């Protein structure tokens, strides 16, 4: 059988809370350190202990990082999900299980290969403590896998000693448990398998990190000083990351005091209220939440839009509505974020695709919010936020200055004849603001959600109200020129595909598959709402445009139709919203089916 290197999907089926996460993480990290592109996906229940959990690793020499259907190697360590796990293996794939107890007949499949290792039996004489035995089970299967897949052993043992640095007494039993599995494999199994790994140079200087950590770090670099939040999966690690990095990087050297304030609020309403109060008073501030939190924050978001107060909100989307599937991914908050709240409202929304972009947007969103004096929502999702993704390393331009927007200090106020908070002095729809306590006699104004004139005086004058609302539209036009531009790759194709956020992960793979079938598409990755001119030009320049997104109702498509007055017939939805991240196979098959159904011309036909 021909050996296939660095191209498979391995899935670990475990029991939640059994300590498998660290062993599985080590597996992925080892491959990464061997220079092999890997993508990890943690598929976990809304539960702390006891329910099934899966960890999927896509290994791809080509660098395809999206989810792929079908499992090549299933490490089935959970009796509860065993039948389902066996069923998910591709024909010709491998089932790795603990054969201390023999496999029931009805679970056997003729078209896969079984790899049984008596893990429990191996551990029994070695470790007296049953708790240890249970924990080391994970390390032992890791040991078996190093032999089966040809993983460099010193890479893994190196990680072990680093992980347990300072706790030397933990290293020894871990290495022993691992060697137990490895030795067994060499002795009794055919090693390595025809599916295996080989060191390559596929990583470069890239890092492996989750988007939430990157977002938190971006907020630190972007100068956020106030973080207010309420725990909600999958966003919690944004605030926790901010706490971790600020406690390392933002302590005053002399006094040990904190150059930041983190408030775990009583709910999302309070979290956004604190953010808005802090931003009103001139501190860069942000919150992180998920869909239900956006719903709760809506009233405040409308106030901030109208009162023109900067605020940054990270929405790490999960499967809705309501609690939906709270530990599964989706892109379901696009409409609710873009139009959050009552009355005529539009919010700036950013769509990061990679951890690096989470880092960049973590800082850029703060600049944008200050410049535009309005809330900026950043829509990530569980897939990007909570899974380790390959990413360009973080970097920062040390000459960069924060854009604090139009804020008048005391000196500037001295030169102002009459301060008008909502006067459109520069013609871009953005007025000048002042911060509380700036000047003894000038620049104070009253912020309110009620209608006011250009000088912030309360008024119910129909003209003044409408003038103000129209100025906000002008500001919206300004926003179009300031938000991150779409990434457009236009070649000679008649048709195109629009995508954003984590839909980018499987896109290259899908495009390659489509091209094999003679389907060529130009691409446009949307990075922000309002849509910049590039998005509109892309749509106008193509006949049919596929809009790929992970929700049921085609929310991005709705937004495009609504905002750009596009004929809906030209925008073809490609949707997936079952809670896992969208796969290349899904995109490929839907687009391919559409080409067939509509008899759209393929590459070969175009050429002829």
């Amino acid at each position, binding site marked *: 059988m021909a050996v296939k290197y660095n191209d498979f999907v391995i899935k670990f089926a475990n029991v939640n809370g059994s300590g498998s996460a660290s062993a599985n993480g080590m597996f992925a990290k080892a491959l990464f350190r061997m220079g092999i592109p890997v993508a990890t996906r943690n598929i976990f229940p809304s539960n702390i202990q006891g329910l099934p959990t899966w960890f999927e690793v896509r290994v791809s020499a080509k660098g395809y990082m999206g989810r792929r259907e079908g499992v090549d190697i299933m490490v089935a360590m959970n009796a509860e999900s065993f039948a389902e796990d066996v069923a998910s293996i591709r024909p010709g794939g491998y089932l790795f299980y603990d054969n201390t107890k023999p496999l029931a007949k009805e679970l056997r499949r003729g078209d896969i290969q079984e790899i049984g290792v008596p893990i429990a039996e191996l551990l029994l004489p070695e470790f007296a403590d049953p708790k240890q035995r249970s924990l080391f089970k994970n390390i032992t299967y890791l040991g078996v896998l190093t032999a089966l897949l040809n993983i460099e052993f010193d890479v893994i043992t190196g990680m072990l000693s680093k992980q347990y640095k300072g706790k030397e007494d933990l290293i020894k039993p871990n290495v022993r448990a691992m060697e137990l599995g490895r030795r067994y494999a060499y002795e009794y199994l055919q090693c390595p398998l025809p599916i295996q790994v080989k060191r390559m140079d596929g990583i470069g*200087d890239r*890092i*492996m990190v989750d988007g939430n950590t990157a977002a938190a770090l971006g907020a*630190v*670099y*972007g*100068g956020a*000083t*106030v973080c*207010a939040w309420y725990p909600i999966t999958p966003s919690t690690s944004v605030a926790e990351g901010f706490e971790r990095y600020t406690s390392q*990087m933002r302590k*005053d050297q002399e*006094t*040990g*005091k*904190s*150059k*930041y*304030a*983190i*408030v775990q*609020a*009583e709910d999302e*309403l*309070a*979290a*956004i*209220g*604190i953010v*808005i*109060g*802090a*931003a*009103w*008073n*001139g*501190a860069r*501030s942000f919150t992180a939440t998920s869909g239900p939190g956006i719903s709760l924050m809506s009233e*405040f978001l409308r*106030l901030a839009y109208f009162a023109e107060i900067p605020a940054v909100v990270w929405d790490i989307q999960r499967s809705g509505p309501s609690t939906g599937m709270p530990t599964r991914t989706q892109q379901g908050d696009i409409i609710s974020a873009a139009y959050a709240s009552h009355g005529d409202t539009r919010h700036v929304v950013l769509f990061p695709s990679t951890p690096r972009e989470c880092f960049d947007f973590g800082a850029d969103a703060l600049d944008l919010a200050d410049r535009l004096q309005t809330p900026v929502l950043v829509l990530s999702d569980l897939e990007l936020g909570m899974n380790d993704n390959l990413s360009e*390393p*973080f*970097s*920062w331009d040390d000459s960069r*200055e*924060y854009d604090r927007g139009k804020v008048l200090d005391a000196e500037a106020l001295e030169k102002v004849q009459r301060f008008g908070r909502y006067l459109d002095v520069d013609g871009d729809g953005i007025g000048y603001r*002042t*911060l*509380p*306590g*700036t*000047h*003894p006699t000038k620049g*104070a104004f*009253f*912020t*309110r*959600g*009620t209608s006011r004139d250009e000088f912030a005086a*309360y008024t119910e004058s129909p003209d003044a109200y409408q003038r103000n609302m129209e100025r906000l539209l002008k500001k919206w036009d300004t926003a179009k020129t300031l938000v991150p531009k779409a990434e457009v790759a236009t070649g000679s194709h008649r048709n195109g595909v629009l995508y954003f956020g984590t839909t980018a992960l499987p896109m290259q793979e899908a495009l390659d598959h489509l091209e094999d079938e003679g389907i060529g598409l130009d691409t446009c990755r949307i990075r922000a709402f309002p849509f910049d001119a590039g998005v509109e030009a892309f749509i106008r320049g193509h006949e049919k445009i596929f809009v790929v997104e992970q929700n049921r109702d085609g929310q991005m498509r709705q937004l495009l139709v609504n905002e750009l007055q596009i004929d809906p017939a030209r925008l073809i939805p490609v949707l997936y919203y079952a809670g896992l991240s969208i796969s290349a196979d899904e995109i490929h098959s839907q687009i391919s089916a559409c080409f067939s159904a509509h008899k759209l011309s393929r590459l070969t036909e175009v050429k002829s």
Partner: protein
Amino acid sequence: MTFVAKPKVHHPRLPLNDLGLTRRDYEGSISTLCAGCGHDSVSAAIVQACAELSLPPHRFAKVSGIGCSSKTPSYFLGKSHGFNSVHGRMPSVATGANMANRELYTIGVSGDGDSASIGLGQFAHIVRRRINMCYIVDNNGTYGLTKGQFSATNDKGSTSKKGAPNLYEPIDLVSLAIQIGASFVARSFSGDKKQLVPLIKAALMHHGMAFIDVVSPCVAFNNHSGSTKSYDYVRAHSETVVGADYIPHAEEITADYAPGTTERISMPDGSILQLHKLTDDYDPHDRVGALHYVQSKQAAGEVVTGLLYLDANAMDCHDIMNTVDTPLNQLTEKDLCPGNAALAAVNQSFR
């Protein structure tokens, strides 16, 4: 209300404070509330307190929620910024504002609907977080702006203007504040300026959460004979337990109370808070005792007023969080951005 604008000039003989300013420099725009509204008296008391303390009139952050009470921040301290925010959510906005700049005086004005109904959760949590601010509730027991519905502080059995009784238990914000961590808790009456002004002064000078519940009758909807928040009822049923005087550190202490009933408390800035105990068995430093006293008097239909609880040495939220002395909103790139070099180690931790 009146639509006649206030004259910009003031009487030449108005007294000047230490900053050379008059009371007029602490006023705001003209009130749009009903003539005789208790809330206007509270605003006037704030003006007087700030003027007498010679505080810079632009160094306040005024925040409020929604309702009649929450309109009032535009009627005092017109040289300071104000924020009339979301119904029941003043505490979160105040928290953020105070986090951003700890040097400003934070004044929050709220109402009984705002703080005891829609915003009870936020009220409770800002108190337990001990934000350094003066939190005033203009408490009239009714929803004025929506024309006279009962609020959650309305006493059981108290009647509406049309005579219908309130069937539900009242929420006592004072008891709640004492219980969950306010280090300064007072109750007063909008019609008793002599008591209210020193309390506001002391609250502004207090380091930590200072809460004042001000019974402030609604002349339009809750000032009739069946109301327990009317001018007449409060005058007839209030009992002052501890009066307070605030004396700036520069001023000579001229106490006119009998020895033995007066206690002087040094404030962090060297000023003195002078408490006049009018009831022998009341100890404003005893949290449990204070709660018991307030509750037992309430059960007897009495409105206990004065400074009810004080812990002059309490920490505020910034102390608890150990934030830097410089206001967070004044920190620059140098303070906040760790720089590209630090990212090398961060990147390495993800390899």
